[in-house]
C-alpha cells in the first residue's frame, strides 16, 4: 500500500471518481468494536469478505504517560506505569523499577528478587489467561472465557492478599518490594499452582483439539522468523515462529538464571502455534513459581534507598520479558528528583505493525483472530 492513508480522502472524493476499485468497500472497525481489545481503530479495505488492505489508527487511549514521568518524582511515577499494560501491571512495574535501579546502581536483596519473580510469573499467568479467554471469544467460542476468568481470579486473590490491589497493583518499589510475603504465602501460591495445572488441562480439552478451533487458527496470520525479526517482534509471537529468544534466558534479571525452565517454541508461526506457545509458557511459569516459592530466600526486602531519589545524571535501558513480549524502559536522569525522559518500548505497539501483513489476503474473520493472537493492550499501544 502507498504511504498515503486511504481513509482520509474518503469525504473529499468526487462522486464517480473514487480512489477505490468499484468492487472494494471500506469498513471501519472500531474504536468502538467488541473485539478490537479496547479502542483500536482498524480501517479495512474489503473485496467482499477478503481483506485487501488495512490500516491501524491508534491514539484513542493516549494519556501521555511517558510525559508524566518528567513531571513526577521517580518514586511517584511508579504507579503510573501500572496503567500501561493494565493486564500485566506487575511486569510493567518491575521493568520501571529495574531501570531506575540500574541507573542508581542498586543491589537488590535476594528475597526481594525472589518475591518479584513469583509475582511477575503469576502475573504472566493471569495475563495469559485473560488473553486466552478473550482470544477464544474473538474466534467465537464463548465458554472458555468464563473458565479462564474464574481461574484468573485465584491468582488475583494472591495479589490482593499481598498488596491489597488486584489489577493495578504497584507492588514493587524502587529498591525492592514494599511488602514482605504474608503469612501462609508459600502454601497459598503452591496451591494456586497445583489448581492451575489441572485447569490448564481442562482448557486444552476444550480448545486444543477442537476441529473448528484448528480450522480457524491453523495457517492464519502466518509470520516467518524473518518477518518477526524485521518487525522487531518479540515474546510469544516471535517464539511461535521458531526463534528461541527469551529475555529471561538471554539477559537474566531478577536472578532468573537460578531457575530451571524451558522456552517453548513453535514451528509454523501461525495463530495456532502462538496459542500452543502461550499455553506451554503458562506451564513453564508454574514451574518457575514453584521453584521460587520453595527456594524463597530469607532476609531484607528493601535495599537502602533515600526518601527522595536523585539518581546520578545518566541513562539506563532495561528490557524484561513481559507477557506480551520484550518490554523496555529507557530512563534518562539529569540528577533532579524527576526523570528527564522516560521512554517505554511497548511490545503491543510494535506487534501491531505486523497486523497488516498478517491480515492481507485473509478474511474479515481472520482480522479479529489476528488482533487477538497478537495479544495487544491499547493502554500499552497508546501510552
Amino acid at each position, binding site marked *: 500500500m502507498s504511504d498515503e492513508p486511504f481513509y482520509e480522502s474518503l469525504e473529499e472524493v468526487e462522486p464517480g471518481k473514487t480512489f477505490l476499485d468499484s468492487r472494494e468497500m471500506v469498513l471501519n472497525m472500531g474504536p468502538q468494536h467488541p473485539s478490537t481489545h479496547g479502542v483500536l481503530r482498524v480501517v479495512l479495505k474489503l473485496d467482499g469478505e477478503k481483506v485487501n488492505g488495512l490500516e491501524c489508527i491508534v491514539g484513542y487511549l493516549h494519556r501521555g504517560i511517558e510525559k508524566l514521568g518528567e513531571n513526577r518524582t521517580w518514586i511517584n511515577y511508579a504507579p503510573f506505569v501500572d496503567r500501561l499494560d493494565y493486564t500485566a501491571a506487575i511486569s510493567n512495574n518491575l521493568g520501571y523499577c529495574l531501570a531506575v535501579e540500574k541507573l542508581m546502581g542498586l543491589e537488590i536483596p535476594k528475597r526481594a528478587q525472589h518475591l518479584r519473580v513469583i509475582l511477575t510469573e503469576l502475573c504472566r499467568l493471569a495475563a495469559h489467561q485473560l488473553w486466552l479467554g478473550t482470544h477464544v471469544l474473538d474466534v467465537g467460542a464463548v465458554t472458555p472465557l468464563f473458565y479462564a476468568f474464574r481461574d484468573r481470579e485465584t491468582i488475583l486473590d494472591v495479589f490482593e492478599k499481598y498488596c491489597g490491589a488486584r489489577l493495578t497493583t504497584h507492588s514493587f518499589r524502587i529498591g525492592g518490594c514494599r511488602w514482605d510475603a504474608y503469612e501462609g504465602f508459600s502454601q497459598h501460591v503452591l496451591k494456586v499452582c497445583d489448581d492451575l495445572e489441572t485447569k490448564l488441562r481442562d482448557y486444552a480439552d476444550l480448545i486444543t483439539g477442537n476441529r*473448528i478451533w484448528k480450522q480457524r487458527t491453523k495457517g492464519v496470520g502466518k509470520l516467518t522468523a524473518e518477518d518477526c525479526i524485521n518487525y522487531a517482534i518479540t515474546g510469544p509471537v516471535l517464539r511461535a515462529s521458531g526463534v528461541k529468544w527469551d529475555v529471561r534466558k538471554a539477559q537474566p534479571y531478577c536472578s532468573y538464571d537460578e531457575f530451571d525452565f524451558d522456552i517453548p517454541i513453535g514451528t509454523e508461526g501461525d495463530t495456532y502455534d502462538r496459542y500452543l506457545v502461550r499455553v506451554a509458557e503458562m506451564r513453564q511459569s508454574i514451574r518457575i513459581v514453584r521453584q521460587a516459592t520453595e527456594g524463597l530466600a530469607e532476609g531484607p526486602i528493601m535495599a537502602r534507598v533515600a526518601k527522595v531519589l536523585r539518581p546520578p545524571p545518566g541513562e539506563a535501558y532495561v528490557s524484561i520479558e513481559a507477557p506480551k513480549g520484550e518490554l523496555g524502559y529507557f530512563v534518562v536522569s539529569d540528577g533532579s528528583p524527576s526523570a528527564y525522559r522516560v521512554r517505554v518500548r511497548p511490545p503491543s505497539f510494535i506487534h501491531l505493525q505486523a497486523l497488516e501483513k498478517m491480515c492481507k489476503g485473509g478474511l474479515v*474473520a481472520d*482480522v479479529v483472530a489476528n488482533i487477538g493472537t497478537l495479544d495487544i493492550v491499547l493502554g500499552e499501544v497508546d501510552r
Partner: protein
Amino acid sequence: MNGFLQYLSSNVTPGEAGNLPWVVIYVLLIFTGISIGVIFMNWFERKVMARMQVRLGPMRVGPLGMLQPVADAIKLLLKEDLVPEKADRLVFWFAPVWVTMTAFTSFIVVPFGRTHAVTDMNIGVLFMLGVSSLGVLGVIMAGWASNSNYSLMGSLRSGAQMVSYEIAMSLAVISAVLMTSRGTGTGTLSMIGIVEAQMQQQTWFAFSLFPVGLIALVIFSISMVAETNRAPFDLPEAESELVAGFMTEYSGFRWSLFFLAEYAAMMAVSAIATTLWLGGWLRPFPNLLSGPAWDTAFSLVPGLTFLALGGLCFWAYRGMPRIALRNEARGLAGFGAFLAGVGLLMLLPGIRMRVQDIFWFILKIGFFMYLYVWYRTTFPRYRFDQLMRLGWKVLLPISLAVVIVSAFIGVRHELVALFWR
C-alpha cells in the same frame, strides 16, 4: 354451537374440516404457544449456558430468574424507537415484520398431533421449507435498509449461507419423503401423512434403512443450525466480527421481533426434523409396547411430568431463604401449584388422550432446542469460506448420495424385476 363443540371429538384438523372458528382458535393458540415457547427458550438458554459456563444466569427477577425474559421484553418495548437517519425507512420498518411473519406462518402445517395442526396440506413439507426460507429476504432487507457496512455484510453472509445450506437441507428432506413410499408405494408430502407413514412402517425414519435415515437426520440437523444463523454458524450476526450483523442498527421492539423470529424459526426447523425423522407426535415405542395398557400408561406421562415439575418448584421453594426472598419464594410456590394443577388437569381421561400428542411433539422439539444451546456454548465460529466449503463440498455430496441410495432402495424390487425377468 353444537358443531363448535362437536369438533372436539372429531378426528381431523380444523382446516380439513373447514371449521373456521376452530382454525382461528388454533392459530391464536399456536401464536401464543410459540411466543411462550420463545420466552421459555430465552430463560432456558440463559440458564443452561450459565450452568455450562460456571455462572448462575438470571437469578434476580422472579423465582430462579424466570421473569427475566418478561422484564427484558418490557424493557425492549419501552425503548426509544431508533431509525438511522440515512436508513430506508419503509424497508427498515418492513424487514422485522417480514421475518417474524414468515417464521410464524410456517407453523400452520406443523402437526402437534393428529388433529392438532391448523391444516393438513398435501404439500406440507414443501410449504414449510418454502416459507421458512423466505425469512432470508427479511434479513437481506434489514441489512440493506440499515445503510450500515456491518449490517450489509451480515445480510450478505446470511443470504449466501441460507441459500447454500437450503440445498443440502432440502435433499435430506427428499430422502425422508422418499421413505414414506416404502411398502405402500405412494409417498406423501403432507406433514401428518409422513408421521402416519412412520406409524405404519413401525419405525422412525431416523432408523429407517439404517444408516441412511440417520445420515439424513444429521445432515438436516447441521443445516438447520446454519439455516437459522445459530452458533457455530452465526456468521451473519457474528458478535466479535460484525458487532451484531444485520441487526446492528435495530433496537427496541424491532430488535425483539428479530429475536422472536430467530427462536420461532429454530422451533420451526426443529419441528420439521421431529416430524420427518423422530416420529412427530408419536409416543415412544408404539410398535413394541403396544396395547391399551401401554397406551394408558404413556398417556399418563404428560400429567405426571407436570406434577413432577410442580414438585420440583416446591422443592426449590423449600430451599429458598424465607425472609429475604419472600415474594420470590411465594411466586415459585405459586408457579409450582400452577404446574401441578395443569398436571392434574392433564391426568383427566378426556383431556390426556387429546393432549399427549402435543406433549411428545414438544418434548422432541425441546431435544433439538437443547442441542442448539449446547452447540452455542461449545463451538467456536466457522469462518465464511469454511462454512461454504462445509455446505457445498461436504454436506451437499453426502445428501445427494443419501437421496440416491434411498431412492434406489425404494425401487429395488422393481429394479430386480426389471433385470431378473
